[in-house]
């Protein structure tokens, strides 16, 4: 036998050349079968396949090993996760085909195999001299792979036969092939290999009756073909590709609208206006996040986003029918504000993942077809088949989408696993971590092995290498209950006209060395995620809350930035050093504020704080003068019950002088470090920028200002800051804050980047009005980006050595992309966590609260309740409810008028907040109007209403 063959294939390059590629392929005779009973193979301790496997299948009672076909892995990966699978042979052919066809499933399969090493055996059949098959002329790649799989099966059979010659025939091990492919099964049976359909086999596993529910749905939908298609077909990939090349089609990412499930937009790269999509046919089965191909409609059919808020609100399963949507969409204002409108003609790449959510209560509880409602509003409901509906209906579950045929109103999916009971805080936390892709598993052994052993002390050599700042009066100021103190400050007078101030940051880079398991884990996590009741650490707790927490009266390693400044906050000298410090005290913001304000306190720390505070105020003023924006987003904090961990009260976070004092110095440190690093590493400094938002972003903001009679100038950040400061109304104090909230929403997302990849002109930080900035996020050590910065800075000051990846522009940019993603997700997770706690908070109460109208829609008011930072919608009309009073919508203002009451943006109203628990499964926060009173819409104020301010006059009925 020739042990060297070659694989030959033709490939067309991007430039249209045809290449003949030849790969040498070596065959071996030392690949073992992995079976315990085999006497021929020289395997050592790697026998995965049992000597005498037990069969729990009624279909195939004799002991057997299972070989899975590629299509099983591709379509039924969730089934394979079950412990029911034992003695499975995974062929290399299957692995490679899976990798080519679906990286997702490949990853999953790898995971399954890694966790269940004792049950899955990978047989490298492609390199085995007896199982390698060459492609025959006229044979498709698929057929060849099928043949390779069959060949491996029959090889196993004959190979094992020799080792079990004496055995009873009933006890002889069979090799069975599981495949979904009809042709392959036929062929296998013809060749004498027992082959079954995977669903057939799974159903026959008598010990695992629940497993069949995980079977992907696509195959039981045999009768779907006969039904009338509900959606237009998707074009063939080649047609889409040529269309995109010629410019007839546009490619972009589909975003479903949060407010209207029948509306979405596609953001095309290089175009600032996104393309609007309306209606079922135009959306054409696109799911949020998919990369789609869009065809633009002729210009006379362009419309504008409809003003209505629309939820797919069927409380019951509507079956496969599409409701009449004209009514739902008809009112989009023709003529003005028209936007490029298009329709989806094909999906280029699905971005389906697994979704958390709940089951919709079905009319037929015994039925097997159920609708699943994802927690994410932008994802459509998913049709699944399960027989455990009764038990699952009270649980949060995870579902994966399998397909979305033209005949089905909803995508088809299957049940993956249950997370726990609805309303359980742990379950809900799990949901929000999963939904936001936050890695929250506990740290693996390899990572923990990188930690220093306890008890840990600073060695003498380490002290020698660093600057000894233990004699300084350093203190930290943080929110109450903070255990990861990552920054500290000091202040001292050098001479009457020269102060020394220092910012000390925990030296995480000392512990997290590049290229260790710990480093990789941290790079993947990217950031520490702060939830209301929980913190998901980026590095193990030993580091985050102990060794890298600048605890009072303990010696800690730090990275220090030390300035010499004049009393006018003019910086004379900046230097950076690695140091050893000992913090004198950990203040909370309030305590620090006390020390500053209390004239009786004359100790060193109080004096330092005062000095710092004074300087901070000057620096802030300087910054404001340069055009830094003071934006706003409501921030709240929960008082959590110590026993149940449930929230018992909500308070807005107070803003004290000391907050902004710490911020100011962190910012200063930030800018100093950024400048220093950029000077030394112009190609690969990790920076953060806040791009100038395009003018069009400000439209809703300007409109809102106009309704209140303010002309807002958005031409530059300075002008914006000035006009925001000017927009004050004495009778509506909160209005200014509202404007700032709106302005915040117009901003671009700040992003991390590597300096070599962006032109220096774009470094500017819009919000902070700083020409160059690092990671402007203030908890300084919770981010992996900080770690990179520490390393760069350490190299820049000669305290550490560099390594290849640190200076590789591409590597750094890749890291940055991950960081951006993780950072965004962590913020979303944080928000969801707040929402979840608000939810829990209202579980047992109904409250009347002040609220402000954020925006006025055609059929609803979006309101903000500042006390809880909560947003909600008050529906003014519903599709088939005539009982509600008639509102007249004026889109120009915009305003809603009913009788003599007019409601405009920013108006103050009173609303009643409660938990709508009409369905136990699907609780949501409900907001009802209390004041102004409109018959038929508003609800009675509850007795305990405690607000005293009367409603401003203009809202009241009168004249």
């Amino acid at each position, binding site marked *: 036998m*020739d042990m060297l063959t*070659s694989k*030959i*294939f*033709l*490939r*067309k390059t991007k430039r*249209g*050349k*045809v290449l*003949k*590629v*030849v790969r040498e392929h070596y065959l071996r005779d030392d690949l073992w079968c992995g079976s315990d009973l085999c006497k021929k193979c020289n395997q050592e301790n790697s026998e995965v396949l049992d000597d005498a496997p037990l069969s729990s299948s009624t279909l195939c009672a004799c002991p057997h090993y299972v070989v899975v076909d590629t299509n099983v892995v591709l379509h039924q990966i969730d089934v394979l996760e079950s412990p029911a699978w034992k003695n499975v042979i995974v062929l290399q052919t299957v692995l490679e085909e899976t990798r080519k066809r679906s990286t997702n499933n490949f990853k999953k399969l790898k995971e399954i195999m890694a966790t269940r090493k004792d049950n899955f055996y990978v047989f490298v059949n492609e390199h085995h001299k007896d199982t390698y098959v060459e*492609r*025959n*002329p*006229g*044979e*498709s*790649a698929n057929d060849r792979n099928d043949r390779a799989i069959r060949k491996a099966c029959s090889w196993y059979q004959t190979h094992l036969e020799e080792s079990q010659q004496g055995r009873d025939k009933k006890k002889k091990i069979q090799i069975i092939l599981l495949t979904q492919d009809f042709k392959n099964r036929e062929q296998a049976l013809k060749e004498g290999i027992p082959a079954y359909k995977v669903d057939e086999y799974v159903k026959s596993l008598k010990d695992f009756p629940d497993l069949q529910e995980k079977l992907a749905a696509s195959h039981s939908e045999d009768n779907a073909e006969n039904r009338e298609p509900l959606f237009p077909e998707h074009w063939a990939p*080649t*047609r889409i590709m*040529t269309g995109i*090349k*010629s410019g007839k089609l546009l490619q972009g990412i589909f975003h479903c609208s949060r407010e209207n499930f029948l509306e979405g937009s596609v953001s095309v790269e290089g175009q600032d206006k996104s393309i609007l999509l309306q209606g079922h046919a135009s959306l054409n089965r696109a799911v949020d996040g998919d990369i789609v191909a869009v065809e633009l409609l002729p210009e006379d059919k362009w419309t504008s986003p409809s003003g209505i808020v629309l939820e797919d609100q069927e409380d019951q399963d509507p079956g496969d029918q599409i409701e009449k949507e004209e009514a739902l969409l008809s009112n989009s204002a023709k003529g003005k504000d028209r936007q490029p409108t298009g329709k989806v003609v094909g999906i280029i790449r699905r971005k389906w993942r697994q979704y958390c959510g709940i089951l919709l209560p079905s009319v037929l509880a015994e039925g097997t077809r159920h609708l699943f409602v994802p927690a994410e509003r932008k994802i459509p409901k998913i049709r699944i088949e399960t027989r455990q509906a009764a038990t699952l209906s009270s649980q949060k579950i995870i579902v994966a989408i399998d397909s979305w045929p033209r005949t089905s109103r909803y995508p088809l999916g299957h049940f993956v696993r249950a997370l726990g009971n609805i309303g359980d805080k742990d379950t809900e936390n799990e949901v929000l971590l999963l939904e936001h892709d936050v890695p929250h598993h506990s740290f693996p052994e390899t990572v923990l092995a990188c930690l220093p052993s306890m008890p840990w002390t600073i060695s003498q050599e380490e002290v020698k290498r660093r600057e000894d700042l233990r004699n300084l009066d350093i203190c930290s100021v943080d929110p109450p209950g903070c255990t990861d103190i990552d920054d500290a400050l000091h202040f001292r007078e050098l001479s009457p006209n020269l102060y020394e101030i220092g910012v000390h940051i925990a030296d995480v880079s000392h512990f997290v060395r590049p290229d260790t398991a710990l480093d990789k884990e941290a790079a993947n996590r990217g950031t520490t995620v702060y939830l209301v009741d929980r913190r998901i650490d980026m590095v193990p707790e030993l580091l985050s809350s102990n060794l890298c927490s600048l605890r009072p009266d303990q010696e800690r390693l730090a990275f220090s930035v030390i300035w010499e400044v004049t009393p006018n906050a003019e910086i004379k000298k900046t230097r950076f050093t690695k140091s050893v410090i000992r913090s004198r005290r950990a203040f909370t913001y309030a305590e620090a504020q006390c020390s500053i304000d209390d004239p009786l306190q004359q100790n060193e720390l109080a004096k330092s704080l005062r000095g710092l505070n004074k300087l901070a105020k000057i620096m802030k003023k300087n910054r404001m003068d340069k055009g830094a924006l003071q934006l706003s987003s409501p921030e709240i904090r929960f008082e959590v019950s110590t026993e149940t961990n449930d929230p018992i009260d909500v308070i807005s976070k107070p803003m004290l002088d000391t907050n902004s004092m710490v911020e100011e110095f962190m910012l200063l440190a930030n800018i100093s470090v950024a400048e220093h690093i950029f000077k030394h590493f112009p190609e690969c400094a990790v920076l953060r920028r806040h791009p100038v938002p395009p003018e069009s972003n400000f439209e809703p903001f300007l409109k809102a200002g106009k309704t209140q009679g303010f002309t807002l100038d958005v031409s530059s950040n300075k002008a914006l800051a000035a006009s925001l400061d000017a927009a004050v109304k004495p009778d509506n104090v909160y209005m200014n804050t509202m404007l700032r909230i709106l302005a915040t929403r117009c901003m671009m997302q700040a992003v991390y980047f590597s300096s070599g990849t962006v032109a220096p002109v774009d470094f500017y930080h819009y919000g902070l009005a700083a020409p160059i900035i690092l990671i402007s996020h203030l908890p300084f050590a919770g981010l992996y980006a900080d770690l990179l910065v520490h390393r760069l800075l350490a190299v820049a000051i000669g305290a550490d050595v560099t390594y290849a990846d640190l200076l590789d522009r591409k590597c750094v940019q890749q890291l940055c992309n991950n960081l951006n993603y993780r950072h965004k997700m962590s913020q979303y997770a944080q928000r969801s966590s707040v929402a979840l706690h608000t939810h829990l908070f209202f579980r047992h109460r109904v409250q009347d609260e002040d609220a402000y109208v954020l925006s006025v829609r055609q059929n609803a008011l979006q309101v903000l309740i500042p006390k809880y930072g909560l947003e909600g919608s008050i529906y003014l009309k519903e599709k088939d409810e005539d009982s509600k009073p008639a509102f007249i919508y004026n889109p120009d203002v915009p305003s809603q008028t009913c009788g003599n009451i007019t409601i405009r943006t920013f108006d103050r109203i009173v609303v009643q907040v409660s938990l709508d628990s009409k369905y136990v499964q699907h609780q949501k926060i409900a907001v009802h109007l209390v004041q102004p009173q409109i018959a038929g819409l508003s609800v009675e104020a509850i007795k305990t209403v405690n607000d005293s301010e009367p409603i401003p006059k203009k809202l009241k009925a009168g004249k």
Partner: protein
Amino acid sequence: MAEILLSEAEKAFIHHGVQDDLRCDGRTRLGYRPIILETGLVSNASGSSRLRLANSDVLVGVKVELASPLSEKPLEGRLEFFVDCSANATPEFEGRGGEDLANEICRFLQMSYMSGDTINLSELSVLAGQQCWVLYVDILILECGGNLYDTVSLAVKSALYTTQIPSIKVATMDGDQPELELSEDPYDTKRLNTQNVPCLVTLMKIGNHYLVDPTPEEECCSSSGVVVAVSGSKKITAVRKIGSGSLHPESLVSMLKTASEVGAVVNKILMKKLLEEETAGKTQKVGFMR
């Protein structure tokens, strides 16, 4: 070409041998030396062959590539020859030493393939005026043992015979850009019709006689000769005179006649052997491992 030093006595011996139709190695004037041929041994080429005629050794690889056709021949693909004289053959080829010979062979090959009868170049057209196949024929001369023209031509013909051209479809036209679709099956290829591809026959005149397949010694004795390109259908597609001596018109006519006869036979035998090799199916490649 490498000159061999021969004494007058040796030359006289060769002369007399040719006169008596018995050459030094026992051949008649129209006898060839043994030929060893193997095809398909360069796996990354689309077609390849190695041919050894006594001590002349040639390796040929054919590479197919897509290109736009020449504007004067929008419906045809084309062949491009390139000869490389390896310094393995003789130290004189080192550096640019072999270039003159290489160009000479190259030009003559190009000339002999120019006739419309030899190869149907329209088979190589993919999309009229837009895309066509270009066959790059790379010839590597590894050893010179006389009669290089014949050796090269036979090797080229064999390589072209085995050349697999990927089948390609014009999927869509869009604006001016054709979208070509490559067949996924590597076996889905087409072959050229090489029936009429010419073989070169070198006739050397020694004394009053002429002979085929001269050895280097014989070449040394001859002052003139012709190289004739003979297609499979016995047609002469190109002629070239070699050597410094002159030829009488009468003997030239007779030489051309003989050449076309010999060429037809050589062609026929080569085609037969190639077919035999092909039908034998996959066998172990020998290559240079002998």
